[in-house]
């Protein structure tokens, strides 16, 4: 029990639990005999993960069952598991709605983890993946793709957008490098380059042909409309590799969050880990934005909500943020589909409607 490890003599003084001296450890230590590993997570993490998973699953099922052609909930569940013999259900759910709903979950998780890492690297709770140029880089390339080369094959759009995001992040990192990287330089250079690419994007949108421009604007808003298994599969490996990698690096994120000096003093190789973590952000946010466009505010909101649920230690924060992000985008997509049916709102509009006031509240609270 936790109390055994308390130093003797200290126990009597703070006998009343919960008042001031709470003797309970705020974390759960996990040390199996085999394999010989050990780690800890915040005490609140298991329950929070369970609840969020339930919310994600329920909203997923609702998202595939509701719509212009409603499918009863239980039939929807059966269809997902291949237990339905109604060919209409199979078509509507497994071919049309399920991949889209899954893409929504994945994009949300990717953006949320990318945001969590960005905020730790920048040591700034108001940072989001956009500060390292992900959104602006992807947007510019996507607009060029859709407006300047309207005849190009649209299946290459995600690839182009991803390359744009990666190139932009690399440019910011290199320009911010003066013998070493620094969080504040990354933010400032990021803002500068974002303004420049934003200007170019505006020019293209202003002078482009209206049909192409409206297509680009939908992409810019962020939407999972019409996403299929062909969109989902290329996104999957990015998440499967880089979310676990960022969880393995959780301790390094915690150290970086204390500032470069302390992280260095603790023996963390700051430049190396920051480089790897930036790569994680680019991979996660880049692939998500490439798949669904620039769904706004998820990378900013999800880490905050997650921190309020389980505190700032990254070992628990990353999976919780991932699920919060997944729920946000899934629920936004659901809301966008049914609120003004038959008109559909892109999920990016809904996340922005929730996110903008939340952002203002954050700014207000941080003074």
């Amino acid at each position: 029990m936790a109390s055994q490890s308390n130093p003797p003599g200290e126990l009597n003084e703070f006998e009343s639990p919960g008042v001031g001296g709470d003797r309970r450890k705020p974390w759960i230590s996990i040390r199996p005999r085999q394999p010989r590993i050990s780690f800890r997570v915040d005490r609140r993490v298991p329950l929070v993960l369970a609840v969020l998973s339930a919310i994600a699953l329920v909203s997923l099922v609702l998202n595939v069952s509701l719509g212009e052609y409603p499918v009863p909930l239980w039939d929807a569940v059966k269809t997902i598991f291949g237990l339905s013999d109604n060919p209409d259900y199979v078509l509507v759910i497994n071919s049309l709605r399920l991949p889209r709903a899954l893409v929504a979950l994945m994009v949300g998780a990717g953006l949320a983890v990318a945001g969590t890492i960005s905020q730790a690297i920048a040591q700034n709770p108001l940072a989001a993946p956009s500060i390292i140029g992900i959104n602006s880089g992807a947007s510019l390339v996507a607009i060029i793709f859709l407006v300047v080369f309207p005849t190009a094959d649209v299946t290459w759009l995600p690839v182009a957008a991803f390359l744009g995001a990666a190139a932009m992040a690399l440019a910011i990192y290199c320009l911010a490098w003066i013998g070493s990287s620094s969080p504040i330089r990354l933010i400032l250079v990021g803002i500068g380059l974002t303004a420049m690419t934003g200007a170019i994007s505006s020019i293209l949108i202003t002078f482009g042909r209206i049909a192409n421009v409206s297509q680009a604007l939908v992409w810019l808003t962020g939407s999972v409309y019409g996403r299929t298994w062909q969109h989902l599969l290329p996104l999957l490996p990015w998440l499967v590799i880089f979310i676990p990698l960022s969880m393995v690096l959780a301790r390094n994120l915690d150290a970086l969050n204390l500032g470069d000096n302390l992280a260095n003093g603790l023996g963390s190789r700051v430049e190396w880990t920051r480089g790897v973590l930036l790569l994680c952000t680019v991979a996660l946010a880049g692939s998500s934005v490439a798949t669904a466009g620039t769904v706004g505010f998820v990378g900013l909101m999800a880490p905050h909500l997650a921190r309020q649920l389980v505190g700032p230690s990254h070992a628990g924060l990353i999976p919780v943020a991932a699920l919060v992000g997944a729920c946000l985008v899934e629920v936004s997509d659901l809301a966008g589909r049914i609120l003004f049916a038959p008109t559909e709102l892109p999920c990016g509009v809904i996340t922005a409607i929730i996110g903008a006031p939340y952002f203002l509240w954050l700014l207000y609270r941080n003074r």
Partner: protein
Amino acid sequence: MLLDTASQIALTTRKLTLAYDGNVIIRGLDLAIAKGQVTALVGPNGCGKSTLLRGMAQLLKPKTGTVYLEGDAIAKLPAKTLAKRLGILPQSPSAPEGLTVRELVAQGRYPHQNWLQQWSQEDERQVDQAIATTDLYEFANRPLDTLSGGQRQRAWIAMALAQDTETLLLDEPTTYLDLAHQLEVLDLLHELNVNQGKTIVMVLHDLNQACRYANEIISLRSGQVHAQGKPEEVMTEQLVREVFGLDSRIIPDPVVGTPLCVPISQVRSRKS
């Protein structure tokens, strides 16, 4: 001779030159800091005290020269190996919002962990011990931002203690604290030195506190060691004049007998 004294020397610098972006702050410095002692670095603003401290902790890579930790060149030690032997607490560190004292202290275990062993029994024990030593038991599960300045500084020191290093460098550990909290922090450091034999090197602004708490004082002036020795030997009216450009009287501290510096103001003199 060198071999004999090597065991009593914690940190040595050889021809150490430190610079920020080409601005040389410390030039060709030779220095030895005693092991198991409290050493205070004093000097005017911009004399290079903090820079020297950062250089000795490898936070700032030297232009030329070497820093040795008990005979080992720190530049050649792997980062984690160095962090197991030498801890540094920079000036006014900041923690993310909502981080609790215990979580902060737990981060001191970083150099003792690896990808597989992220939270061992020993980690747990050291964190408990650090919290007990700094008397933070009552606040262990409170977020850092809800504590007073003195408690917060104790939490940072607890983190450095959990790091379990023999040598501890602190950059102005009493800045922004009121007088009572300043003494509280200095008393804690004194106890760590006496009870656990830790080598403590700290930058201090207050000469009288330096004299009271340090076994040895190193005064710096424009990147050079001006004087080094026991407070009773080096803290003279001449030193204060040469280092700070200030006239003063040195009298025995009526409480502990160490030198006490009473500055003489140009404007505000006796019974004016």
